[in-house]
């Protein structure tokens, strides 16, 4: 861990990291971008989850909804990751000291694995790919898992600013 913290210290004190942390404008702009991009990444994955659970657009074939929402989810996540990466760059050692940050990163990995498992395994089962009603329970579970994981990620992310470091 101390080795990792050493690296984090170097990242944070790099020219770019310091520039972002000390800039009057860049820090709020990047933080604002991170928040706004969440409305699309988190927002559209939430809508996707609600479809998997059977709340949103239940009458529309699952594969149809997934195909149409996927580009927004992925596009949103690209911006969220990029802005989040820049924020991390400027305060790597500070946030890494918080267990909340570690928990948040683990949740992001878990959320990514859950989505991959859905896309590569559950979503390719014939009854899911061809929209045979009723959909297997695993679809609902994947949706609920995703909803829980990403919601907790947001909670931890916001609390990072409040918990003692």
């Amino acid at each position, binding site marked *: 861990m101390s080795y990792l913290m050493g690296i984090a210290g170097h990242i944070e004190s790099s020219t770019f990291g310091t520039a972002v942390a000390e800039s009057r404008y860049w820090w709020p702009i990047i933080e604002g971008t991170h928040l706004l991009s*969440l*409305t699309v990444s988190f*927002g559209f994955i939430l809508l996707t989850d609600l479809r998997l659970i059977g709340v949103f*657009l239940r009458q529309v074939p699952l594969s149809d909804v997934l195909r*149409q929402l996927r580009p*927004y989810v992925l596009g949103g996540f690209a911006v969220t990751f990029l802005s989040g990466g820049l924020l991390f760059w400027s305060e790597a050692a500070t946030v890494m000291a918080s267990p909340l940050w570690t928990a948040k990163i683990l949740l992001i990995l878990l959320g990514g694995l859950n989505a991959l498992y859905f896309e590569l395994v559950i979503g390719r089962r014939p009854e899911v790919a061809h929209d045979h009603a009723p959909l297997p329970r695993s679809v609902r579970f994947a949706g609920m898992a995703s909803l829980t994981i990403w919601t907790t990620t*947001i909670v931890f992310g916001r*609390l990072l600013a409040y918990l003692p470091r």
Partner: protein
Amino acid sequence: MSIDATLVAIQGTGLARAITKSNHMVIAGLQVAHVFGLLLLLAALILITLRLLGWVLLREQLSQVIRTPVRMFWCGLALVLLSGAMMFLSGPKHYFYNRAFEVKMLLLVLAVAAQVPILRRLADDQAILPPVKLAAALSLVLWFGIAVAGRAIGFV
């Protein structure tokens, strides 16, 4: 009663005192609720606007597409207003004299005044004319402005 006296009176109410004196995690909890409300509200409006502009879920009936998002919008609005009001109570003077907060409240009044009739029109399920689509897109911009102004409160 002058504005300052009003703000001080607000600060002295039981609820305001309770929030101010509470553990800082209560304020953190309000911040979490505020972000969630904002995400629900904006995600719903983005989906509705994209549908109106014909970018997503075009073959599905409008009333069907917007049913869940409209509920998300109202839940989100209730969450942001409630948590926001409680955060305001924790420091009425601090917020009232903040330029970003002033802009945010102005935009909020405009956005709510624009959004409610737009949603009502969409619920009618008649053909949606270009002016309504334009109004929906402009009001979405207002909501984004509210989010940006909100972030700015801590920086001005």
